[in-house]
């Protein structure tokens, strides 16, 4: 039985959502904000006794959440999730408020409901205890929004606080030393996901990286306990890999759920092999990129663990693997949109590792018909744009059709020019001309090729808004 406050909060949230939708605005946070204001225990009450998975970490939250949601839908659940990326307490509350009618309707038909909640790291600290999910997934820890968090270890302390407020199962990234260290003191409820070990080793032998002019800034080269540099027997990217501290012996844990691709990770549909629970299953990489191999491993791990917690025997590794091959990219994550004979593809780049992955992808892709970078510095983006200097642009090649816009286009232009990797033909425009520049870039993109668009968060939102009208795309909140 819900309290009167929660019922009132639900009514208010419903009314606001209706009004905002009526006005054509995505109601992704305001209803939840009001609901929490009216009933401070809204999240506790709405989540009690429910099937919930929370996903946190600096990168890959949206894609992992999306993959988990798609698997659970196929397994017969009515799924409530924050696809829009509104991942603060207000966004989570909005999901509960919004999905309540569907949950009731599903309940009448005997269909179970599950919630999959992408959660901001700072919000995780204060909501995990209230929501008390069945499974928490921690994707990784890379430098991100340091103007908000100050330092990376503070971000980790937020995640730690959230984990300690629940007794949920915890799925950690085995290849990220900073995340894997969260197992300490929680051993009895922890499982790991990661890259396949043998594959990571052979990859390093066959494709030794060219030494960069100036290596990218790295996040976790040292064992923080011993102040000694980790030794790596293999790496996948960033600080992910087979690390070992020569002093205390702390080392990469064998993942319970792992993944690798046969062939290039840059190709959509490359064969994806998943292992876990002693089983092995074939899938395909429906969203390209080495980071999405990790997201896939995290997603199947979360679903299998959840299945065990919820006593659902459908959620086996082969079942999850099969669904995974059909998952389409989440909002702004490698989403490819065809326009006549050409296409454009949006890759959200909100922090150094995201930009690094996107630039790697563009360097490897064979269909590049232009690159368009957009940089904003609103609160949701992080007001500090100096992170663009942490990324290695120098050893990349940009096409003749390279474009720059966004409120901080001048900083991105400077970054590109200083890298000497971009031709003199680079074009730039202020944010107010960003749509015109998109049209110019798309017109210049040859048929059969793809214009790669790399915006940060609010730049993506505004571009997406324009594209929804221009190409009649689906609104992301529907």
């Amino acid at each position, binding site marked *: 039985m819900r309290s009167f406050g929660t019922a009132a909060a639900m009514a208010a949230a419903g009314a606001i959502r209706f009004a905002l939708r009526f006005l054509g605005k995505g109601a992704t946070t305001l209803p939840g904000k009001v609901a929490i204001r009216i009933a401070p225990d809204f999240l506790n009450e709405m989540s009690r006794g429910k099937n919930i998975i929370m996903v946190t970490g600096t990168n890959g939250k949206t894609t992992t959440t999306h993959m988990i949601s798609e698997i659970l839908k196929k397994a017969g659940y009515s799924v409530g999730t924050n696809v829009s990326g509104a991942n603060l307490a207000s966004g989570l509350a909005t999901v509960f408020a919004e999905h309540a009618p569907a949950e009731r309707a599903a309940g009448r038909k005997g269909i179970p409901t599950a919630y999959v909640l992408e959660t901001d790291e700072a919000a995780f600290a204060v909501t995990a205890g209230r929501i008390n999910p069945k499974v928490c997934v921690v994707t990784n820890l890379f*430098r991100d929004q*340091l*103007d908000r968090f*100050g*330092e*990376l*270890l503070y971000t980790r302390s937020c995640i730690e606080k959230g984990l300690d407020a629940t007794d949920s199962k915890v799925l950690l990234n085995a290849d990220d030393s900073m995340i894997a260290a969260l197992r300490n003191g929680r051993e009895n409820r922890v499982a790991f996901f990661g890259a396949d070990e043998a594959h990571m080793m052979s990859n390093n032998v066959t494709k030794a990286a060219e030494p960069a002019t*100036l*290596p*990218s*800034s*790295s996040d976790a*080269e*040292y064992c*923080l306990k011993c*102040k000694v*540099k980790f030794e790596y027997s293999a790496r996948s990217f960033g600080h992910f890999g087979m690390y070992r501290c020569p002093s205390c012996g702390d080392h990469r844990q064998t993942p319970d759920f792992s993944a690798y691709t046969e062939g290039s990770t840059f190709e959509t549909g490359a064969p994806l092999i998943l292992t876990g629970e002693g089983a092995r299953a074939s899938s395909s990489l429906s969203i390209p990129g080495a980071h999405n191999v990790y997201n896939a491993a995290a997603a199947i791990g979360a679903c299998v663990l959840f299945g065990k917690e919820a006593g659902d025997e459908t959620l086996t590794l082969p079942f999850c693997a099969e669904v995974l091959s059909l998952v389409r990219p989440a909002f702004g994550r490698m989403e490819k949109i065809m326009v006549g004979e050409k296409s454009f593809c949006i890759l959200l780049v909100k922090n150094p590792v995201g930009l690094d992955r996107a630039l790697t992808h563009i360097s490897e892709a064979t269909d590049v018909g232009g690159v368009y970078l957009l940089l904003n510095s609103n*609160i949701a983006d992080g*007001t*500090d*744009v*100096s*992170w*663009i*200097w*942490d990324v290695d642009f*120098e050893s990349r090649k940009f096409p003749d059709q390279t474009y720059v816009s966004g409120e*901080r*286009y*001048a*900083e991105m*232009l*400077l*970054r590109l*020019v*200083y*890298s*000497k990797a971009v031709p003199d033909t680079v074009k*730039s425009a202020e944010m107010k001309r960003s749509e015109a520049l998109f049209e110019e870039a798309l017109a210049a993109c040859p048929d059969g090729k793809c214009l790669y668009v790399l915006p940060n968060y609010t730049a993506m939102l505004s571009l997406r808004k324009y594209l929804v009208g221009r190409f009649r795309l689906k609104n992301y909140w529907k």
Partner: protein
Amino acid sequence: MEQTIRICHMYPDLLNLYGDRGNILALAYRAGLRGIKARVTALSIGEVFEPEQYDIVFFGGGQDAEQNIIRADLVQIKGDAVKTAVNNGNVFLCICGGYQMMGEYYEEFDGTRIDCLHAINIYTIAQKKRLIGNTVYESDLLRAGAAHNCVEPRKLFGFENHSGRTFLGEGVRPLAKVLCGAGNNGEDGTEGAVYRNVYCTYSHGSFLPKNPAMADHLLEKALKQRIGEDFCLEPAECEVENIARTSASTCKRG
């Protein structure tokens, strides 16, 4: 004969926060405009610092945990050589954590004093509230000079993110005065420090890229030091830097 500028990048695997790497790229880029090649050497834990091998030494900022990792190495292994280099007039650029470590001590929230290098007469006291945001400073040390057509060459644009409050002792002068932001300590209107050829600031990341007059000032100082006082850097344009400077001139603080 091709000129080379020899840059020492101190602890790049540990002091690499907030885009500090961009400063090395900027030195290399601005040097390149004059046909001067940059040779960057990374020095980390356990490696010996030989001052005569370098023209410019760069210290960036790191997280507290990472600064704790380097402290012993810096004080015990490289400390004497760094002090020698400072007194010999080597050019240094030290940012945030690197700036603090050059000083006398760093006092933590709980009053614990961490002994620093004693290379310059400054000290830092930590406070809980971090000073974060865009900054604009003005330095009377700078002029357009070789940074040809640089817009408002005395102005320095940056972004600060620090919890330490730094105070300057005798013999050390500020690098600039604060026009927007907190600067050294949020109290006395000063920003950064200059002692001999050591330049310190709280400006992160794109500090030198957006401030070509500062980058050129460091390059010229360093090459004068090696080649002789008569050395002058050839003028080079600041076209793309000026676009970034103009757009940064309205200092928005969140």
